[in-house]
């Protein structure tokens, strides 16, 4: 009789998590293929089309960068909270609020003639602040009253959706459509195609400067995690809150500060979407970037630099997903990937021993 037994690993090699993650993604794609085939679709054709449009065509890089920008910013945002095992899953709502505030600044507060740099800076600050505000509500409720942040942050996402709808259907609507008027040019993020006269290759490429925001944020966070007191506290509180308390860390303050930055980055993702892509606020402008960002953060194992790559790959998945029917395929694959990655964690924590004729009394030891 063959018996499997799990033994806890004492040490984990550096490469093991990377290999298991890649393996998990492959397994997820395989499972997705089986489901697609079961639903009467040809998985090879669907995957092939997605890969081609997402990664292999001349506009792929630019289009994929566009989609990966909000994923990267919001993914960095949620990863900060996840580091201290604070489950901010309301990034979508924080993103919406950031987009709302940036729109308000661009259309209703600053005059059209505001210089571009000041305009974009003001919009960025407003976007960050609104996202931070929406994030700090669950943070404050968690820190002061122990309210479960998973539920409260998600409920606030629904509230944010209705809030946005009020403005785009109501006072900000133009011509009876659920959208605001277009931003003045000064409120647009610079895009690659702006330089098409000098560099013809950029013609039609819509990638915008928002991705740089993401890269800069990733590098800053990497440094902060490694070298700042806050980064250290995040890790200690996440690993062992009791020890953190004994060490005299102010957990409430760290929770609130973390949610400010976490929500702020998601808000910046929303600002970057309206300034870089849609150039107005409209209903359903985000296809759930804030939710996909959760998977991106998890897949990158909360490492900010790895997140740049993972966000890019998921951006490609979304671009490719837009090219095929039915529209839910990327969402389904995302769910599968998340499942397989979390399952694969087992292999990084435990070693599987196969025993023949193992005595029945044996127990695993810790």
């Amino acid at each position, binding site marked *: 009789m063959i018996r499997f037994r799990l033994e806890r690993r004492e040490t984990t090699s550096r490469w093991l998590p990377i290999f298991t993650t890649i393996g998990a993604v492959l397994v997820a794609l395989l499972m997705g293929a089986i489901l697609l085939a079961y639903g009467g679709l040809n998985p090879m054709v669907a995957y092939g089309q997605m890969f081609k449009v997402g990664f292999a065509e001349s506009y792929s890089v630019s289009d994929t960068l566009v989609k990966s920008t909000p994923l990267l910013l919001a993914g960095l945002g949620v990863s900060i909270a996840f580091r201290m095992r604070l489950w901010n899953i309301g990034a979508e709502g924080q993103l919406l609020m950031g987009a709302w505030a940036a729109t308000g600044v661009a259309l209703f507060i600053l005059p059209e003639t505001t210089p571009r740099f000041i305009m974009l800076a003001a919009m960025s600050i407003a976007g960050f602040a609104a996202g931070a505000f929406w994030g700090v509500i669950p943070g404050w409720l968690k820190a002061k009253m122990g309210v479960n942040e998973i*539920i409260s942050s998600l409920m606030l996402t629904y509230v944010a959706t209705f809030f946005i709808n009020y403005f785009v259907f109501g006072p900000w609507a133009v011509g009876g459509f659920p959208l605001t008027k277009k931003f003045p040019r000064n409120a647009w993020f610079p895009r690659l195609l702006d330089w098409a006269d000098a560099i013809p290759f950029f013609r039609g490429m819509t990638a915008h400067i928002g991705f740089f925001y993401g890269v800069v944020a990733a590098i800053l966070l990497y440094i902060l995690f490694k070298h700042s007191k806050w980064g250290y506290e995040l890790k200690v509180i996440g690993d062992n809150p009791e020890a953190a308390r004994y060490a005299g860390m102010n957990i409430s303050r760290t929770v609130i500060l973390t949610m400010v930055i976490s929500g702020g980055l998601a808000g910046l993702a929303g600002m970057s979407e309206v300034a870089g892509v849609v150039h107005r606020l409209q209903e359903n402008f985000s296809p759930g970037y804030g939710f996909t960002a959760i998977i991106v953060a*998890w897949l990158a194992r909360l490492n900010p630099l790895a997140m740049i790559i993972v966000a890019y790959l998921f951006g490609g998945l979304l671009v490719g997903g837009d090219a095929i029917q039915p529209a839910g395929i990327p*969402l389904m694959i995302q769910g599968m990937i998340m499942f397989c990655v*979390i399952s694969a964690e087992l292999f990084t924590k435990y070693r599987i021993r196969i025993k023949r004729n193992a005595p029945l009394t044996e127990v695993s030891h810790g």
Partner: protein
Amino acid sequence: MDETLIFIFTIIGAGLRTGTPLLFATSGALINERAGVLNLGVEGMMLVGALGGFAISYATGNPWLGVAGGMLAGGILSILHGFVSISLRGDQVVSGLALVFMGRGITSVFGSRYVEIRDVPRLPTIELPFMKSIPVIGESILDPLFGSQNIVFYIGLLTVPAVWFLINRTRPGLYMRAVGDYPAAADSVGINVLGQRYLWVFVGGLFAGLAGASLSLAITPLWIEDLTAGQGWIAVGLVIFASWNPWRAALGAYIFGALRRMPLDLQAVAWLPFASNPILGVWLDMIPYLFTILALVISSREATRQRLGAPLALGQPYVRGERGL
């Protein structure tokens, strides 16, 4: 006067009906949490239950087969969560989140062909015309409440005491609580901890599937993408609000149902013109979600005064011989 009374109780009756799917979902989440497994994937399981129920009812013409299929769909998805969180000892929060993504994705892929369908065989409404003839309270109170309710409403009413009885007065319920509170002790007296947890996670999935199917076959009898609109998450929140007690869970579900339904009913009120204004109406639509947060705040206030009924080993994988409860 009678008009007003009828109106008020019609609203309450509609609220009770609207809260019924949430009642099922909350009961299910409560059951698997009592066994020590946190399943945040209720939203995903509800969605596959709703679509599964809808599709099977449409294909077979029998809504009860649809309910069975929807329950099974929720159950199957929950087993996946069980496998990750019980056998593979994965993080239950992340696995539950993955379940939601998966449920949304699967129903989005397979549901697109059902969106246009309106003539699906539905669960029956039970007409009780004699309610009207009961003296004094019949016409103005009982008839609007019970005169014409869908059968799932009555199933919901029966579920609450049944779940309470199961948890507190039966041997399987004792095992459920044992593996949820003291898994190591349960193990030492020969209870199969992992098997029990699988069982109750599956039961929780069946309930979530029932919640979804009752939504798509009775309460909002149609299929659209994201039909549940966050109700699965609200169920998870209500379990905390209910401090793991089925009676309080029912109370929360019904209040939520009433709040969710109210914007629709208030449109008929002449002196509340803003309710029928679709632009201002969105403020009313926010109320149920804000209520959920408020409910959590209230229950956390109580938590400071008394030790609440959270299962002691909630969210912790059980590994024989390792530290922990």
